[in-house]
């Protein structure tokens, strides 16, 4: 399967990795532990799952002004995600991606939180916005 989105920023360019898919808005502050890189949303099925080198797939974010600094701490601890795909990118998530220099894409033709599954292998072309999906 292939899906195509809009490249908001290409970060360091082409990446591949495993998808971790949230059906609810995600924030680096509150939902994520920058020391371990694990999801800290209590009661969520992905609780405890590591985002290290993963491709974060989210509908949008719940904000949090200081989130870019939290993302930076995760990068420093070598547990940050490799890319972010959103249905609708908000400005804070964009800032997070820019701070840690990873690709961020949004505005896909389909609802990515429905068509993608946690564990899917994704290959992102950061020039065209094309995402190759294999499962």
């Amino acid at each position, binding site marked *: 399967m292939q899906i195509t989105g809009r490249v908001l*920023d290409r970060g360091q360019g082409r990446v591949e990795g495993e998808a971790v898919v949230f059906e609810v808005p995600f924030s680096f502050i509150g939902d994520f532990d920058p020391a371990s890189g694990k999801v800290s949303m209590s009661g969520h099925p992905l609780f405890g799952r590591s985002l290290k080198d993963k491709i974060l797939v989210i509908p949008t974010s719940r904000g949090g*002004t200081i*989130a870019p*600094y939290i993302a930076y701490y995760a990068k420093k601890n070598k547990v940050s995600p490799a890319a972010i795909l959103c249905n609708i*990118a908000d400005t804070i998530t*964009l*800032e997070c991606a820019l701070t840690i220099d990873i690709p961020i894409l949004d505005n896909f033709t389909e609802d990515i939180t429905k068509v993608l599954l946690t564990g899917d292998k994704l290959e992102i072309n950061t020039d065209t916005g094309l995402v190759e999906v294999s499962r």
Partner: protein
Amino acid sequence: MYLTKYEQEMAQGKYGPGLQKAINILIRYGKACGAERLVEITSAHVMPKEPPELLSQFTEGIEELPVTTTTHPLMSAFNPEKWEAMGIPADFAAAELAEHEERQKIHGDLGFIKCYSCLPMHLGNLPQKGDYISWIGSCAQILGNSLIGAKTNKDGTIVNLCSALTGRALYHGLLLDENRYAKVVIKLAEDIRLETDDDYGALGYYVGGHVIIGNVVFDGIPKSATFDQLKYLIAPVATSGSVHICHVTGITPEAPTVEAALGGKEPEDIVIVTRQDLEKTKNIFRYDPDQPVDLVIIGCPHVTVQEARRIAKILKDKKIAEGKRLWLGLSDATCTIVRAMGDAGIIEEAGGVFSNTCQATIPDSPLPENVQVVMTNSFKGAHYINSLQQGKVRVMISSLEECLKALNLQEAQVK
């Protein structure tokens, strides 16, 4: 995106690696947001919580900041000087202190004005109507946009820091006049009485939650409203919803009239707030006088000199009951004035503790162990303490006077 020659040179690294990094973040952000250009700002207000390594990379080669730049409170009740008196555990303090000192050095060298206040307009950072600025903090942003009529976007910490370092902001969003007009008119029903801080706060919190998105204009707020009352009215509007600008007819600079605030257009909605709406809003954090209170928090937004004086008058020759605590959030500069007036001594004598930190984000720092019930006069404070503590403490709201009364004030021993 259009860049001036100076901005292009900055991006190419002519003025050092720090400015190069900072402006390139702004350029990439601007391209993603579709901003056509950068504009010069006159003022910045930043979050002093930068990862020290990031701060040192982004400031490499910069000798002095280009515009007046103040610091927000630390977004934590943790106070580097007062943590012991506040009852915060030592292991938490040790980790925070090391990073705090690294940051402090860079801030001092570059000329960040270390006021640690969410009310920068009181601490020497007062832009003019129409100025482009980059301010952090939901309260500073909505007061800057509304009360002062300066123009800031609601940026996150990295874009805000890069704006402070380069003296530039992206020309988009709330910097454009067409995005600043009110869409919803708020009117007050005849039965409404606005007397205490929590009356103003309930009105703001109700409107923020009710309107959800877009700018509002309040019509009918008395001209005599004080800064403190306007602060309690406007700050929670940005807490319970996504209202960006809160015009007040006859008071805020972009709202001489309702029509001017609406930009000559018809309102999308007119909301009439009743006394019952305010009562229901207060019931979200209902005050139960029979419930013993462990900690009273005043200072979200930060306490002003006038407010500290009201507190001192009530606490004079009184002592807070054993086991109860009173935390007051205010800037060190304000505290110096309050001390010179004799009011700080009275408050401390009674058992109150001053802290220059943020009183709404206390959960970032552990609360003292015995604290189960927190009381405040602030809807913004109550909202964040409640949501961030995830039900571990009960939060109640009432007026400043009732909050202090709940500390079971006793007559102090005559010396």
